[in-house]
């Protein structure tokens, strides 16, 4: 990718809102919840997954500022494909850390104090990685099909 700062932010928001939103809707009913059988459509679960998605989005904006700074050290001013995938590690770890510390606001009782059940880790891991991977794939190719100007304007959508 050849992002500008503005393009980074726009792409980040677009991807997480559109793909993050859709995938969260589809994946939440099948995430592990510590009980036998699939959890199905449940308002509480949706509340958790969407709050985590929002957390990734808000923190992501801050991360993008850091990535932009790192990019300045690169002569090409590019952002290698690999970086787009491996940044899942630092970003995921930070969100998990905040969950562990009970610093993510708005979560229902039982998850807001950092004392997290073990199935929750797997639910988080699956949710986070699936969304990240789909967005990464989409950003590195198919996105160019509907939006022909996107790649030439540093990832800006508007």
């Amino acid at each position, binding site marked *: 990718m*050849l992002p500008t700062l503005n393009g980074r932010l726009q792409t980040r928001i677009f991807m997480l809102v559109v793909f993050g939103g859709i995938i969260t809707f589809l994946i939440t009913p099948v995430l592990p919840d510590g009980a036998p059988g699939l959890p199905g459509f449940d308002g509480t679960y949706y509340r958790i997954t969407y709050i985590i998605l929002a957390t990734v989005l808000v923190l992501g904006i801050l991360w993008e500022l850091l990535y932009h700074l790192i990019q300045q050290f690169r002569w090409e001013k590019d952002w290698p494909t690999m970086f787009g995938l491996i940044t899942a590690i630092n970003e995921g770890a930070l969100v998990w850390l905040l969950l562990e510390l009970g610093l993510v606001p708005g979560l229902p009782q039982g998850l807001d104090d950092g004392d997290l059940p073990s199935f929750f880790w797997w639910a988080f891991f699956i949710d986070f990685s699936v969304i990240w991977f789909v967005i990464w794939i989409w950003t590195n190719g198919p996105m160019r099909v509907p939006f*022909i100007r996107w790649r*030439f304007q540093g990832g800006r959508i508007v």
Partner: protein
Amino acid sequence: MIEPTAASVVPTTDPNTYLPAQPMPAGDLTDQMLQTDFWTDELVASAGIPIVDVPFVTVGSGIGSFVTVDYLRIAGVPTSQMRVLGTLDHPWQTYEYLTRVSQIPRGERLRSDSASRPDNIWGFPSYGFAEAMRTFNPKLLWQLFSEPIFADYYTPKAGQAFETMEREKNRIGYDEMLVKGLVRIVRRRYGGGYFTILTPPEGASATKRVAFRSQYVHIAVGYPGLKFLPELQRYRTEHNDYRHIVNAYESHEHVYERLLQQPSTVMVRGGGIVASRVLQRLMDDRLLKGAQTNIVHLFRTYYHGTNDGYGNEEDPRPGGGKTRLFMRRRGENGWAYQGFNYPKSVWGGQLKKQVRGLEGEQRAEIYKRMGGTNTPWRKLWQKQMNQGRKEGWYQVLVGTVDDMQPHGERILNQVRTAQGTVPVEVDFVIDCTGLEADIAEHRLLKDLLEHGGASRNPVGRLNVDRNFELIGTRSGNGAMYASGATTLGGYFPGVDTFLGLQVAAQEIYLDLRKRKFCKRIGPVRSTIQWWKWLFGSKP
């Protein structure tokens, strides 16, 4: 905008530079036409030149023309509305010739990004992905994933680029639009639009010239020409020796053939991609085919560490100081290393945005800073050069050549180095410096500068606006665009590349869309058109 009624008549000092002496046959350009900046319909008709009406013509018939009409075809313009004027049978003809003689035959790899596909405006699937799928090669996928950190940048094979362009050419009905012939004059038309004068091949038309009357003209004539280093050109003409001194961009296979038969010394001049390719050929022949070639590589500028377009870290640059922390690239063993011809972000990221906002000297400054001869760091090349240095058959010199004289069958060079002048006797010299000729050496461009209202940009090439309209050439409701190497130095760097041609084509499409010449390629149209591309059906 220039008011057509205020047209000035600029007398040419020597009309014979354009045409053979009089009397002119019917259907040819007249002196009056050559001396008039704005032509009326009557003027053209009275010369007996037949007039063909078509809204859009593109002059050049190379990859620049192809990419532009491809975009417009996808934007819904039928083939009947456009004509491609030029001498080439197919768009990649000149490009293939130049890459082949400079040692990139179809099976070798270009220096071009995976997503820079002239046959596909979306760049998806990229060359790399397509090649990996076709050849079931997971290594390529790994390369695409890990470039440029753990692997060299993926670059496509020349053959893949030509084959896919051929497919796209057939898909968009390119041949229906192609009119063969030479274009040397485009003049503004009194009342708006342009006349483009085509000289068809002999016998192809009843008259010597044919005029295309169009609202829009696109100029994509490519490199105006290549120059030799002056001392090489002098030697060639003085000693009538075109065998031992060759330019990498002319056919020089005889050199390699000779090297296989006889142990010889070759001097390679230049530090760019072509020098790298030529060295690879020389080293391949040595390592794989047993040639006993010694290589003397002459650099003018020797890079030994971080650098930018002004030179090494400590070399002087305006405002003093060293390379900027945020604007420096790697260099070593004489070379400056860079993946592609420009820092990658000129095609879509930060540098593209930055240059778009710069004028005059500031723009020239950043061109200079990110410029300079450079080549990619490739594993194979590093391995070969290291072996050559170790075994002593690859030697590097830094300097310029003061004098060249024949010495028996060989050539004696007096190389001026920092340590003084040293004589170097070699059997062949391969010039890989790739100097480009001035745009005025191209007759069409010269005419546009003198009679068409075109001007030069801060770097001396054709001055185009952000939408690639040729500044100063507007004619009534018509517009003239230019893209490719002739427009280097404008608001968008990287024009003389696959992706650069597509960036230009997109800007031109957007401008023509505002002028209602084509449809909008919004998300829906774009997606439908992409599927059509995938299945090979007409746009």
